[in-house]
């Protein structure tokens, strides 16, 4: 053990983005190899398993799914999985479990001290961890969507549908970001963020979507739903499904609102983190 003190370079003030990027570097590995990621892998494994079952059924010449007595083709089933499983269930679940834990995990593990006693704004800590959440969920969710796609869609249909797949991937990414933004605020503000997050995602959002009127405009699902018809194929069977979404606003409005949710809630979350005292349990 030596006591020499070789001089370091003078302190260089970092931009908010640069500080966030460095927190991202620190957080990504921890987040990616956490137990929560195993949980996420299990969740996204569900649609892959379902696609495998469909593939096996269809290999015997049987119809895996019929709507109004009409057999659904591979890409239509893929569209249903994207909407019913990924957008309505997996994306909100991941948003709740990761978004609410961005700060809560660090507080519970008592590692927040190391981040809050460095010369970076607290808001940059949150944004860095949010970026790590996005990278982590994209790395697991988007490949699983690709797997589902290639299991369900015959190779002959790939050239015609690949563009739609990219739109779906973009939609999922936007959904993860928007839900993550909302739940990062919930996680920064409340003591029991997970419960509140679950109530929002599977109580408020689900119930309000069934009620006629304008309340549904206060949900993320409404705007994600508004983008679904644009992403879905327009063949005969799926037009029945599209009928469900006829009263949705135009795509640009949905996009604008989703980005507003993301930016607005993330900004509010950084303000909360800047001002809040995190008292670690002794």
């Amino acid at each position, binding site marked *: 053990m030596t006591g020499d003190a070789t001089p370091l*370079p003078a302190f260089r003030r970092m931009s908010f983005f640069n500080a966030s990027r460095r927190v991202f570097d*620190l957080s990504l590995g921890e987040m990616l190899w956490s137990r929560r990621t195993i949980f996420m892998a299990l969740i996204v494994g569900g649609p892959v398993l379902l696609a495998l079952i469909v593939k096996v059924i269809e290999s015997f010449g049987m119809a895996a799914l019929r709507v109004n007595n009409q057999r659904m083709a591979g890409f239509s089933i893929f569209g249903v999985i994207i909407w019913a499983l990924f957008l309505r269930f997996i994306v909100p679940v991941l948003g709740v479990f990761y978004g609410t834990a961005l700060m809560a995990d660090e507080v519970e593990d008592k590692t927040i001290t190391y981040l809050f006693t460095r010369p970076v704004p607290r808001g940059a800590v949150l944004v860095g961890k949010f970026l790590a959440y996005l990278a982590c969920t994209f790395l697991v969710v988007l490949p699983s969507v690709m797997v589902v796609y290639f299991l369900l869609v015959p190779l002959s249909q790939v050239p015609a549908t690949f563009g739609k797949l990219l739109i779906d991937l973009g939609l999922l990414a936007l959904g993860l970001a928007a839900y993550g933004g909302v739940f990062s605020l919930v996680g920064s503000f409340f003591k029991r963020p997970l419960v509140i997050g679950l109530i929002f995602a599977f109580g408020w959002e689900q119930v309000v979507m069934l009620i006629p009127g304008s309340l549904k405009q206060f949900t993320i699902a409404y705007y994600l739903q508004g983008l679904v018809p644009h992403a879905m194929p327009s063949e005969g069977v799926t037009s029945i499904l599209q009928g469900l979404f006829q009263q949705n606003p135009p795509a640009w409005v949905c996009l604008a609102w989703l980005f507003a949710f993301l930016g607005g809630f993330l900004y509010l979350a950084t303000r909360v983190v800047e001002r809040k005292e995190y008292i670690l349990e002794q």
Partner: protein
Amino acid sequence: MMPATQSGTGNREPGTGNALVHADGVSKWYGQVSGLNNVTVSIPPGVTGLLGPNGAGKSTFMKLMTGQLKPSQGTIRVLGEPIWGNPEVFARIGFCPEQDAFYDRMTGLEWVTALVRLNGLNDAEADAAAKRAIDRVDLMEAANKKIGAYSKGMRQRIKLAQALVHDPELLILDEPLTGMDPIMRRKTIRLIKDWARAGKHIIVSSHILHEIESMTSNILLINNGRIVAEGNVHQIRDLIDTHPHTVYVRGANPRALARQFLTEDDVLSMKFEDDAVVVETARPDSFYARLTELAASGEAGQIDEVQSPDDNLQAVFKYLVKQ
């Protein structure tokens, strides 16, 4: 040793220009519970020990002076600047917290490098600084091991490395010697003294007078959220020497340790607890010195951990509060 006044200012003027930390009427409440109670104190440059039993308010005071908590009342300035909501001051401060919390999947080197990158160093500079800091705490051989596989003493040392990696002006150390074996304690104390000799400032907390005394003679005594006394350690030393001192020593061979302790005339009593021996001594100084020699020689097997329960101080605090 000055028994502190109600405001705790002692013989220093509040607002002293060169104070490392200046607290002015600082109180901190956790709901109905008081963590710190109307503390006014200026901590001078050099090494200062913050001494008090667990729950006395040491950690609360340290969290306030590291900007983790906001005072419920009063103001606190560190290195002349307000600390709450002012992250840039942390370029000049290194903090070693009490809690045993880490990113266990990272190696020691990865962790220290990642943290010092938050100080604005580029990758090459951060890597070099982290290696230098880890070398300072004598942990180079384990630098590439995962922190989850570290012993308690190694975890303490890597925590110390992250605190000093950016060469801060002020090191704030919350119970830094907890869980270290005697040899590592001695090395860490030497490191802290070397740091002070290099013109750096240190505020170190402990509930063990012997530890604080080995680093500095300037102490703040804290109890029940108040600064009870401040000043030179020697007077309190005399007080504490009149009370038996309990030391918990965990090692590979507690019976061999006990045999060695029996030869010491200052050992008043002993008892065994699992793989440890708990000793009551009348002269902690000579006992700790002998313990370090024993650890170095290996005569009584490996010594893994030394702890001193905080009730050693209670009698002294009672005495001071009555003054």
